[in-house]
């Protein structure tokens, strides 16, 4: 399986980008070229140079260091928000699937429809005006929006799997409903969930960037790619690199997770195993 994965171009590229982002975030925990929050007004708006590889912003902060800390921030948002959505959403979706057509199923699915009816970012803004701005609340809001996505996918995929004869066979072998969900349904929808998780991971990073751009996500002085973009607006003509670098970071991370998900879908499918 590993050999097959390593010959899959989009998986390899996605994995490489993801590892790069992970590596940078990990490195930022111990070391950044400069203190990401230290301001030096005398060195403001410097273009890329030997001391500041990616230049400095309007307060003289090192852009590379901010981007590295921003990667940590983005990964944190992705992991926690997708984790919330995945765990609660899959549990709800699979539960709904076992009771297809029941009141519980209807209630769960209509609630999902209800949340889908509102644009995600608008509702996230609404939630954040109630909870107050900040990273934790932004993660919560994004996580809540991931729940119906996973609930629907888990329900649909589970229903499809539960119509197969091997579920009958597992029942006939004496498995309980929970045992069947755990051992027979979940492994068969795992691929779909992982692919969706990587897409949602990318979307969560984007959403956090969007919310921070609007000023209600990550609060200063904590660096966030979205806030860096927002800050750069004023100096777009003067220092375009201030917008280019965080923009590229967001695009690269999102691309990486999407490619990874795509590749994983193929790699995880046992039917594509080479003879």
């Amino acid at each position, binding site marked *: 399986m590993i050999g097959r994965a390593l010959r899959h171009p989009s998986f390899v590229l996605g994995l490489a980008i993801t590892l790069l982002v992970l590596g940078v975030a990990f490195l930022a925990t111990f070391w950044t070229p400069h203190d990401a929050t230290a301001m030096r007004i005398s060195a403001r708006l410097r273009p890329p140079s030997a001391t500041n590889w990616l230049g400095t912003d309007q307060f003289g902060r090192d852009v590379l260091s901010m981007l590295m800390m921003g990667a940590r921030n983005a990964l944190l948002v992705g992991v926690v928000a997708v984790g919330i959505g995945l765990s609660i959403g899959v549990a709800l979706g699979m539960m709904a699937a076992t009771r297809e057509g029941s009141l519980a199923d209807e209630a769960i699915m209509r609630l999902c429809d209800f949340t889908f009816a509102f644009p995600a970012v608008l509702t996230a803004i609404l939630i954040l005006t109630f909870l107050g701005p900040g990273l934790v609340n932004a993660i919560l809001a994004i996580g809540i929006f991931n729940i119906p996505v996973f609930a629907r996918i888990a329900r649909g995929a589970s229903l499809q799997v539960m119509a197969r*004869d*091997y579920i*009958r*066979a*597992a029942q*006939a072998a*004496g498995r309980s409903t929970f*045992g069947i969900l755990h051992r027979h349904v979940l492994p068969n929808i795992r691929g779909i969930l992982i692919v969706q998780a990587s897409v949602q991971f990318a979307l969560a990073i984007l959403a956090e960037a969007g919310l921070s751009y609007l000023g209600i996500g990550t609060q200063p002085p904590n660096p966030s790619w979205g806030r860096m973009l927002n800050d750069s607006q004023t100096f777009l003509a003067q220092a375009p690199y201030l917008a280019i670098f965080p923009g590229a970071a967001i695009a690269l991370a999102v691309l990486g997770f999407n490619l990874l998900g795509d590749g994983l879908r193929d790699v995880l499918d*046992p*039917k594509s195993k080479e003879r």
Partner: protein
Amino acid sequence: MLRVEHLRIRFRGTPILRDLSFAIDRGEALGLVGESGSGKSMAALAIMGLLPPGMEASGRILLDSEDLLALDEASLCSIRGRRIGMIFQEPMTALNPVHRIGEQIAEPLVLHGVMEHAEALREAESLLERVGIEEPCRRLHSYPHELSGGQRQRVMIAMAMSCKPALLIADEPTSALDVTVQSEILDLLRDLRLQEGMATLFISHDLAVIARVARHTLVLYGGAAMETGDTIALLRQPRHPYTQGLLAALPHGRSKGTRLQPIPGFVPPARLLAEGCPFHGRCPRGDARCAAEQPPLTVEHTRAWCFHPGRVE
């Protein structure tokens, strides 16, 4: 061993199965014959306690004098796979594509606490050998898609047999297979039954298959028993018009040069079936009484539920 007494299944008030009774002894096989919709698979699911939601069963299903219909889900789970094994029609979809063959065969053994995982895998290997899979040691690590249909059905049989159940239910186990493979699987099922002394309920729409595997046969139509008895007697001299019709529709040695006789009409939907014999509308001997009353049991060399048994038209 297994006694089914007055089993009835209803779906929202509509009878799906009416008053079915039969018994199977250790090492015996009973063939349950019927067209699609005759209720034969529902009878099997009722025995397993796996009827779809909305279906209600009444009567008694006694496995070693324990009434399965009176048991709760947890007790049923401990019986399924342990004391009753089941094989399904579609070997292509009856194995989970993400688990290796060995794991799937070992699953019931571990689940019912018969043995530890490592021991269960060794047992799976010897089971694979018994059901005639070549290189069982290597096959343990195969995924289902790497096996042919016949091999998969052998794996299914190994799975169903793993806990040495007292009763094996085979629901159309060979219908999806090639004729040559069919024959091998039927031989395998017979050998295993004789070696293990399992009671077998063999469900099929194919009289030729039933004739090969089952000493006794029960013919179902529209959810009601038509005729039952010794398989050879029933096929040689059927007394019920439906059984006679079924046999006349089959090609055999003497029918060369003559036309096969289809049964006129089609199977009526369950909700249209009245109190009387479900076959009355298509029966050459049907009359007003057949439509209104349940036909009586008549016993000669077979047991037939019919007002006008016997004569072949």
